[in-house]
């Protein structure tokens, strides 16, 4: 079972803090991978404009990097900043990592005044095209995300060693939100794309546990033919896509996510103020019901963070913090390490019906229950 850690704070902090907190939970992973997602970026040597999309990934050879440069030029992207990690390659298990890149681009001119949706779609299509470029060339290019204010790092190995290998302790990169997952390989191959967090159009999730309903969900998502619903090297990738589908395709509020992945029983819905609507929603989204055991931690483009459990609550997760800094982790010791100066009596472990939401203002938690009224005036 993997271990998860998320920290969100008003003051940007180094991802190394989160990796160190992961060490507190080291009994829960086997060193088969680390995934990091940073949101709300700050670079030591560059005044970053949060409108610039950041391309994150790995070029496995010089050729691949050149090919990527050419591709981005042709597509009309202007490179504004290219972050260079101080590398210690001897600490990395894999030997074909030519360069880890975090690059900020200015979008092509024609997208200057385009609506947000179109800009996001373009970034998604660019990321998919780059991913395909890598796949067509013997997997010499791996792309994790391409989105404003978001950076991602994924690598196979022990989390702290990866942090040291990339010198993440040096304060060159900081962010207001950082998600990290230490991977416990279970039933799928060790593959960079299988490392959490998973990312699509600004929405990211990471998960511990296994997804027993993976295949029917995957079949359904693949059949929808929605750009970006591909990959599935890990059974947890579908959680990110379901969240994306809920928010972007169905345009439902975040609270509806829980109703889709773990609908209430008919008996519970009979007492619910929007029971009829929710029964209908359960019916049409039945193939997206997850069957656990999972805890899903996610972040949205506006820096909202969230935590939900599967119906059986067979995976742990705790949230704790104070005004201005919050942490979600698989274990309490992880929360302790991330926000030590909090009142631990206010820590919260969500029950089967809860969605824990840390709003962007980070003042207090929102604990939303499925039994509450859904904020959906037009449908209800």
């Amino acid at each position, binding site marked *: 079972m993997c271990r998860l850690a998320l920290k969100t704070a008003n003051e940007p902090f180094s991802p190394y803090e989160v990796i160190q907190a992961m060490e507190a939970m080291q009994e829960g992973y086997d060193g088969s991978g680390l995934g990091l997602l940073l949101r709300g970026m700050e670079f030591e040597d560059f005044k970053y404009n949060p409108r610039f999309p950041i391309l994150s990934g790995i070029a496995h050879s010089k050729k691949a990097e050149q090919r990527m440069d050419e591709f981005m030029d042709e597509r009309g992207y202007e490179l504004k900043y290219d972050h260079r990690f101080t590398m210690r390659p001897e600490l990395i298990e894999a030997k074909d990592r030519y360069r880890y890149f975090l690059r900020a681009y200015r979008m092509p001119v024609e997208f200057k005044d385009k609506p947000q949706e179109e800009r996001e779609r373009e970034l998604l299509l660019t990321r998919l095209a780059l991913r395909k470029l890598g796949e067509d060339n013997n997997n010499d290019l791996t792309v994790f995300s391409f989105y404003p204010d978001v950076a991602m790092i994924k690598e196979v190995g022990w989390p702290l060693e990866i942090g040291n290998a990339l010198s993440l302790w040096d304060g060159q990169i900081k962010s207001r939100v950082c998600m990290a997952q230490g991977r416990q390989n279970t039933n799928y191959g060790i593959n960079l794309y299988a490392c959490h967090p998973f990312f699509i159009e600004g929405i990211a999730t990471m998960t511990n546990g*296994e997804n027993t*309903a993976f295949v029917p969900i995957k079949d359904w998502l693949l059949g929808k033919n929605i750009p970006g619903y591909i990959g599935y090297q890990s059974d947890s990738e579908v959680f990110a896509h379901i969240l994306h589908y809920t928010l972007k395709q169905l345009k439902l509020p975040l609270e509806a996510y829980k109703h889709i992945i773990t609908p209430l029983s008919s008996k519970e819905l009979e007492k619910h103020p929007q029971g009829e609507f929710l029964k209908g929603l359960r019916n*049409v989204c039945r193939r997206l019901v997850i069957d656990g055991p999972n805890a899903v931690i996610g972040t949205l483009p506006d820096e909202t963070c969230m935590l939900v459990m599967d119906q059986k609550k067979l995976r742990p997760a705790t949230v704790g913090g104070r005004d201005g800094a919050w942490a979600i982790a698989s274990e309490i010791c992880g929360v302790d390490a991330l926000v030590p100066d909090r009142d631990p009596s206010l820590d919260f472990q969500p029950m089967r019906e809860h969605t824990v939401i840390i709003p962007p203002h980070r003042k207090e938690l929102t604990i939303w229950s499925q039994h509450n009224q859904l904020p959906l005036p037009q449908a209800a």
Partner: protein
Amino acid sequence: MVSTQSVTVTPSSLSYTDLQWIIQHREDRCTLCGKCTAICPKGAIHLTYRRQRVPRVDVLSKKRGSDYKTFVGIRQRTKMANACIGCSMCSMVCPNEAITPVPNSNENRSVFFNNQKGEPNKRGGRRNVEGPTLLDRIMFDRISMLTDPALDAGRHEFNVTTTLGRVLSPEDFLDRTINGGWIPPTREIFPFVIGSMSFGALSPNMWLGMLQGVAYCNEVLGIPVVMCTGEGGCPPWVLRSPYLKYIILQIASGYFGWDEIIRAIPEMQCMPAAIEIKYGQGAKPGDGGLLMWYKVSKLIARLRGVPEAVDLPSPPVHQTLYSIEESVMKMVQTLSTAFEHKVPVYPKISASTSAKSVLNNLVRNPYAAGLMIDGIDGGTGAAYNVSMDATGHPVASCVRECYLDLAAQGKQNEIPIFAAGGIGKNGNVAQNGMALVMLGASGVHIGKYIMQAVGGCLGNEKNRCNVCNTGICPKGITSQSPKLYRRLDPDKVAERVADVYMSINTEVKKIMAPLGRSQCLPVGMSDALGIADKAAAERLQIKYVC
């Protein structure tokens, strides 16, 4: 010595050893009570006088001679019309265990004569093919072991219902919710449906006993079982009762019973569970229903609006329809309209190579609520033996192909596929049903299994009994003669329905729990399936394991 010319031997003359079943009778135990000969549905045995030689010894002379005496004994008839069907009613009623039929282990020569007067063999039952079916050989091999702990089938909450009815895509559902569009009706049902068996094919005691059991399952046990009427309608009082909501009304090419149904619509207390339009069935694809004259009693004639004691063969197709567009569009829409668009309407077809075309038509029809596919192993009350044994298509690959076709279009939750045909043929009803669910069926229909488990039907694939068509059912399950069906107590039938469904419910949980599934039926969870047969694994796109 008897001259051979005085013995009548015709081409159809058979001896006991030519028949499929030989009656074994023990003179030493027989009390000559006559119960066996009275109960035999085929008149295969009769009491007869016999002569026995008694040696005569004259002590005063050296002559030896014979005396004769008569006694009453039991003899088996060897005419085709009276051939024993192995139902064992004789041994059931015998107070002394003096009699029983035994299968002939040599050969069955009577098959060559099962066509007297040019009439090919007609019978009830299933395809006479024994042994484990493909479904029996499927294993559930994705076990939650250590990486994700298995669930506790006895203590966890399980949701094992399925949806019957058209399911919109989430986008359409929200659009119609916001803009006030029509949301197609759906039902949350238990995935094992009592398949279509008509009031006519079944005796009143069997049919009403089943309905009583189904109502008990719903209202007391909380297992939302539904049953399908088959082609023959419903008793008028049932149509006007609150139990109609547990009934799927079938309309087939003979339209039997539909006058009564249409008349009852204004007085219905509740809507039926669904409407099934039968275009074909697995046991006899390309054939309409058949209720032979023996079974068209006064009650059945009244219900179906036909004269008494006439054969009722339904046409192979709906006479008003000559193309799929018409069948699907016209009938589905008409029936949906008749019930104010509040009842799911779906077609039932025989599994065949053209099932996918039908399915794709349904996908484009907004009123179609599902597709029921009935495979070659399905049972029937009356059909030509050749249709039953040789015509049709196995259900597993047909359902799988249809499911994958829907999945490729991203519509696998929109048109639920129901499967039937041989589920529980060897008793593994929950395992067979769940294997089909994981191949992509939203649920299954079980008919023959229900007759066997609930009514005590004696039929099997060794051609035992299988006389449902002639109304002489020894258990009273498929007879319309009160003398026979009074043997079946409807209350006991209802009790068995409850027993069977409680047991299936538990077994379904015992299958789902090790897979780590409890929140919803694992429809299409093909990663949980394995089979020790490379070709089948490849065809079904599941794992080959050995």
